[in-house]
């Protein structure tokens, strides 16, 4: 293992560090890379549904995992702003829209898998089923609240609405994440199994609490 180090090797290392490193976040492949990462659960579920690797009850696995991923992406999206401030990396903001849209992708898949696999796309049954069950109604409301956010996610919509109104509208995400958490809590309440719910509750309380604190400080 005798290293064949060229004499100049050490100087290369030292020459790189002091200069203000161009953040990796601004690298042109950063976005595509994140996209690939976010799409992985979808690919895995899609593959599993056809390769039959989702266990004994694949329909249930599909409905549950898409719900889990919705809640996860909502948390990740809400974590962008606090992270941006703590790490002093303003460029993190460029990923927020994509993360939010992935939350929307997974909620659409969640609703579709329920409507298809559980309800056989029978609209009358779905319309009857949702209002009857508070847990489903809360989840459905959270889904509906996400639609205007997804629809107004592109630049022209932001311009058309004006930044102020756009920001006000997108505060709906706070209601969405709380309703999503309640939906998850109710689902898990069946087995008095609140371990996982507690983790999400802590994360969401932290993310929203941080915003309240910011607001109070600036007031």
């Amino acid at each position, binding site marked *: 293992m005798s290293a064949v180090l060229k004499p100049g090797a050490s100087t290369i290392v030292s020459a790189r560090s002091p200069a203000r490193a161009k953040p990796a976040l601004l690298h042109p492949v950063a976005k595509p890379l994140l996209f690939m990462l976010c799409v992985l659960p979808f690919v895995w579920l899609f593959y599993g549904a056809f390769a039959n690797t*989702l266990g*004994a009850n694949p*329909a*249930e696995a599909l409905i549950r995992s898409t719900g889990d991923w919705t809640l996860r992406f909502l948390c990740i999206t809400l974590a962008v702003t606090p992270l941006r401030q703590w790490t002093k990396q303003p460029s993190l903001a460029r990923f927020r829209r994509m993360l939010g849209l992935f939350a929307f992708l997974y909620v659409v898949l969640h609703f579709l898998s329920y409507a298809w696999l559980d309800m*056989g796309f029978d609209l009358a049954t779905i319309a009857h089923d949702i209002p009857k069950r508070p847990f489903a109604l809360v989840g459905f409301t959270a889904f509906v609240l996400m639609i205007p956010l997804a629809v107004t996610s592109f630049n022209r919509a932001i311009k058309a609405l004006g930044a102020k109104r756009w920001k006000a509208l997108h505060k709906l995400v706070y209601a969405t994440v709380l309703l999503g958490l309640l939906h998850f809590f109710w689902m898990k309440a069946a*087995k008095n199994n609140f371990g996982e719910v507690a983790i999400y509750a802590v994360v969401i309380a932290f993310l929203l609490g941080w915003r309240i604190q910011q607001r109070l400080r600036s007031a």
Partner: protein
Amino acid sequence: MSGHGTGSTLAVQTDTRPENAMHFLKDRGFAIPSSEVTPRDVYEGRRHLLKLLAMGAAGATLSAWAARVALAQSTTARPNKLAALPGSHSSVGGTMEKLTPYQDVTTYNNFYEFGTDKSDPGRNAHTLKTRPWTIAVEGEVKKPKVYDIDELIKLAPMEERIYRLRCVEGWSMVVPWVGYSMSELIKRVEPTGQAKYVEFVTLADPKTMPYVGSRVLEWPYVEGLRMDEAMHPLALLTFGLYGEILPNQNGAPVRAVLPWKYGFKSGKSIVKIRFVEKEPRTSWVKANSGEYGFYSNVNPKVDHPRWSQATERRIGEDGIFQKKRPTLMFNGYESQVGQLYAGMDLAKYF
């Protein structure tokens, strides 16, 4: 005779004489048309032939006869995982539906003592020790007794019963259980006039059951039946499935199977059977009496407060994109057990 895994060799005396199996032929309960039958090439040729006959080549009478003979004569192919526990084929509650694969029956379980995820019991239940094991039969009986499990296994001839299993969560299976009617045991201990209910107490051993400490339910898990329900021939004291002893995650070494009730009524790994005067306070009623009742009979017309009970998904058979199948009243056993609940408001006594 003995399979891998368990060191115990079970020498079970089983009566396979056809005349003994014939006792049960009166009670058929085919709620599903024989047209749904899928032949299994693992069966011996004779059964296959009879089955083909039953599928409609012959007239209605002949096909019914052939189907019954096919059931009475066949044995389910063993997965060769555990010690054998053969049972003579019984047609009590017999269904001709396709069996749920052994793999699914043993990896998709609700057994909260080993975790609340349905894949948990299959992974965690290997810690359960099923020998030595005793079952105390006590309370309002003239002959209380503590049975050793191996004594209980020999109490009556083993039968293989193919039952539908409907979980309260909206999925179902078809399982070839091995056991004998609970009434066989009940008759022997001679309940007194005070015995109105039977309570099943299951094992709660924090050393071998990792989730017994959890607050999901009150431990030990307790279930119960009315005396007439427990005496019904369909009520099975179960020791095996697929021709072998019960895997731990399915409730070894002995469990109840009550095919007309939601699955959670069928207590697993039973250690005590008590005969009592008052309706037992069961674990799920204690946990949430608004959602789970003492009777918990399968009923497509009475919904769970949080979901519909009108349909179900058959594990391992219904494709992922297939519409769910309708749930049958009393899980398809209405003709056998319906009279137990004559005049009762089933929406009130859910």
